[in-house]
Each structure stands twice: as C-alpha cells, then as structure tokens.
C-alpha cells in the first residue's frame, strides 16, 4: 500500500448541503446503476464479427482486467468505450446515459453527432500501448493542453496540477523535456499523468506495458497499482501481466470469440477457472 494519500485522491461525494438529515437525497444514489454497461453490443468490421452481442457491466470504482487470446476483441472494447470506434449494434451505457447515442423526442436511440461524443468522452481517459504523447510539445504542455483547452482551467491552475501529477509519476525533473528525450517507461508515465489531468471517472488501459523494455514494466505497474488503491477512478485494463491483474483488480473478465465466457475475482479465475478455454488460455500465458 502507498503510505501517503496521492495528490489525485478524490474526496468522497458529499451529500448536497441543502439535504436535511433523513430527507430523501436530492439526487439518485449512484449505486442504482452500473457505471458502465455493455448492452448487446455488436462490433463488425465488414463481415468480420468481433463482438457478438456482448453484455457486461462495471461498477463505479471497480477495477476490471480484461484477458483473452489475441484477436478476441479486448482492444475493441476499450476503443468503443473511448468512442474511437462506433458500435455496429447495441448500446453502451455510461452513468445511466447512452454513450454514443442520443434519444430522439420519440424516445428512440440514434447515433450521436461528434459534438455529443466530445462531451461524453470527458469522463473517460485512455492510456495507449504506444503512449501517443504529442512529440511537438514539452512534457508540461502535453499534460496541460487538454485541461486548459477542454476543461477551461486557467493555465496556472493546470500547471500546478501537472506538477503534482509529474511528482506522482516520479518525473518532476522532466517537466521541460520533449517526449523523444524520455525512455518508454517515462513516456508512458507522462501519458498516465496526462490522462489523470483530465480527472476521468473511467480510465482505460490497453496493454500499457507491452511496448516497454522488461526492466521498465514494474515501475509503471506500481504506479497504476497506486492509482487503483488511492483514487476512486474506475479502471478497465487489458493486460498480459497476470500478477498485476491479481493485485489490482477485483474482477477479471475472460473473453473469447466476442463474448465474455467467464468472469469473477482473480483468485477464482486464476486458480479454479470454470471454462476449459480459460484454463487453456491461462496455461499458455502463465
């Protein structure tokens, strides 16, 4: 466990000040619905069906690991949630609202315009396998660009926050470096800081250590573990690091052929899987 609270620690949601004790809460309790719900989601590329009526949900604050063989659609799931791809059918719900649909006056869901998507994405952050830092900006600006220009923070506030986050990821000294001057592990940590600067409710991590040299993996995983333990950010991780899955996540989802074939706590999945496919997969990767 990290010994001191991280600067990104969120305070628990407080009840509205005007709510008298015993009175019905002014807002519906957030435990009423899952934070993320995939509802019969289908994703096709041409004739190739990648996700075939996928259903699963994620509670607020939950840390989920997605495992499964190559090509089983793990990345696709994260990209759909990040709205980098469009669903072919079905609906993804985030916090009770359809993610990439809008409701017409008649109550029918239709695909949302880009503007709506831009709004919907604000609560979701993503860290990529290849980091995707902006090479034309220094580390500091990589982190402040979106808070300033999307959230409308003033520059000083955003920079102060960026410094905190750089401190958190252990890269205060690199604040004025360009991404090309950093190692892969350092770049990935900046990318994590950049995602956190947007204060996402949901953080998507797609094999964030698999492009790193082996000796750099542990540092990044440790950082992610700290974030998982010390924040209430909901995390969906695709990873081949089974130890990480075991340490950090409460739930493991095993994918195959566009379906969740098994889900449960890591102890259960890793020691006593129900499905033959899960067993075979784990035997192959462990």
């Amino acid at each position: 466990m990290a010994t001191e609270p991280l600067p990104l620690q969120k305070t628990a949601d407080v009840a509205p000040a005007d709510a008298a004790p015993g009175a019905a809460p002014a807002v519906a309790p957030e435990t009423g619905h899952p934070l993320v719900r995939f509802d019969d989601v289908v994703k096709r590329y041409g004739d190739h069906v990648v996700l075939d009526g996928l259903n699963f949900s994620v509670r607020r604050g939950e840390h989920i690991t997605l495992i499964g063989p190559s090509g089983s659609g793990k990345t696709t799931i994260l990209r759909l949630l990040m709205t980098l791809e469009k669903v072919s059918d079905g609906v993804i719900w985030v916090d009770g609202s359809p993610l990439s649909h809008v409701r017409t006056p008649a109550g029918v869901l239709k695909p949302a315009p880009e503007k709506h998507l831009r709004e919907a994405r604000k609560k979701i952050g993503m860290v990529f396998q290849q980091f995707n830092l902006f090479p034309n900006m220094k580390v500091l600006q990589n982190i402040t660009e979106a808070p300033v220009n999307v959230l409308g923070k003033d520059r000083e506030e955003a920079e102060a926050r960026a410094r905190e986050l750089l401190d958190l990821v252990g890269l205060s000294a690199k604040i004025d470096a360009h991404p090309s001057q950093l190692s892969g592990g350092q770049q990935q940590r900046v990318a994590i800081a950049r995602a956190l600067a947007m204060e996402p409710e949901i953080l998507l991590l797609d094999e964030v250590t698999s492009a790193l040299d082996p000796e750099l993996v542990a540092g990044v995983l440790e950082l992610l573990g700290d974030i998982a333990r010390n924040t209430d950010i909901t995390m969906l991780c695709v990873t081949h690091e089974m130890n990480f899955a075991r340490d950090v996540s409460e739930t493991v989802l095993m994918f195959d052929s566009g379906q969740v074939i098994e889900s449960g706590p890591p102890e259960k999945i890793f020691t006593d899987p129900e499905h033959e496919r899960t067993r075979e997969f784990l035997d192959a990767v462990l």
Partner: protein
Amino acid sequence: MNGFDWNAAGDALPLLLEGFRVTLLATVLGTLVAAVLGLAVAVAGRAPSRFVTVPVRAVTEFVRSTPLLVQLVGAAALFTSVEPLTIGIVVLGIHYAAYTSEVYRAGIDSVPKGQWEACRALSLGPRRTWQAVILPQAVRNVLPALGNYAISMFKETPFLAVITVQEMVFEARKYGADHFAYTEAFTLAGLVFLVASYPTSLLMRKLEKRLGH
C-alpha cells in the same frame, strides 16, 4: 554577331535589378498565398462533409490541369481593372496552392493515427487538434518540399511578363529591344536567377538534412 558587350550589360543591370525587385515581391507574396491557401485546401479536403471535399477537389484538379500561362492570361482578361502584378501574385499563389495542398496532405497523412486518437481521448476539439497537434507535426515534415515549390515559383515568375508585369525578364526584353542587346540582357537576367536561386537551393537542402529527411 559581335562579342559580348560588357558596356551594354553594365548599362542594363540597374534596370534588371529594378525588375528583380518585382520578381522577388511576386515570389514572396505568391509563396505566402500558396502556403496559406494550400494549407486551407488540405484541411478542407479532410472535412467530414462531401459538400466541402468534392468542390475543393474539383477546383484543385482544374487548377492543376491547366497551364499557368493560360490562367494568367485568363485572369488578366477577366479582371481588367485589377493591377497586373496583383493578378500575377494571386494566380501564382492559387496555381501553386494546388500543389502545396498535395504536399500538406501528405504531411498530414504522415502524422500517426495515434496522435488523432490521443486528441480524441482527451476530448480536444477540432481547432486544437489541428492547431496544436496535427499541423505542427505535418508542417515540419513538409517544409523542405514547400521550399522547393517556392524556388520553382521563383523561376516561373517570367510568365508574369505576358500580362505586362514589369519583372526582370520583362525588363530584359525591353532593354534588348531598345538597345538591340538581347544577348547581354538575357544572359545577365539568367545570371541573376542563378545567383539568387542556387544558394536558396543549398539552404533548402541543409534544412532538409537538419529535419532528418
């Protein structure tokens, strides 16, 4: 024919340099138009709506498949009240924009897909995505190619003489006719072009190397 008349050459030089000022002006302003307009065309070509991309593509295709000379004469005939130099600059700019837009397009295409996705994941709007992320990377990649277009525009400015812009070759021809010293006037004009564009080419090549292409 007599030998090269050095006196005539010396006599013609001030006039030619006067014309060279116009040549330079046309090149610099024409390049500016081409650089800005080409960029706008390249970005518009990426617009999500076909109502934008189709006309843009049609116009650039038209500009690219008709000769500069025809465009100059056509524009001069259409806009008789506009100063020839202005027409020349605008036409040069538009003509070259059809090519620089292609260069920009390649530069934009060379920006990795992950950069667009990072922008989206951060909810950056289209303006910041282009201005802060995509274009700085794209333009850096294409600077040498743009420079080469500037040099070739420089060498095509003599076409402006056709619409009576008094650039250097116009002056050379005038001097040649007045003093029957075409050889001297044109040799000198050619030398001035060489002296101006060779170092620029070298500079471009250096820039290219520095940008690591």
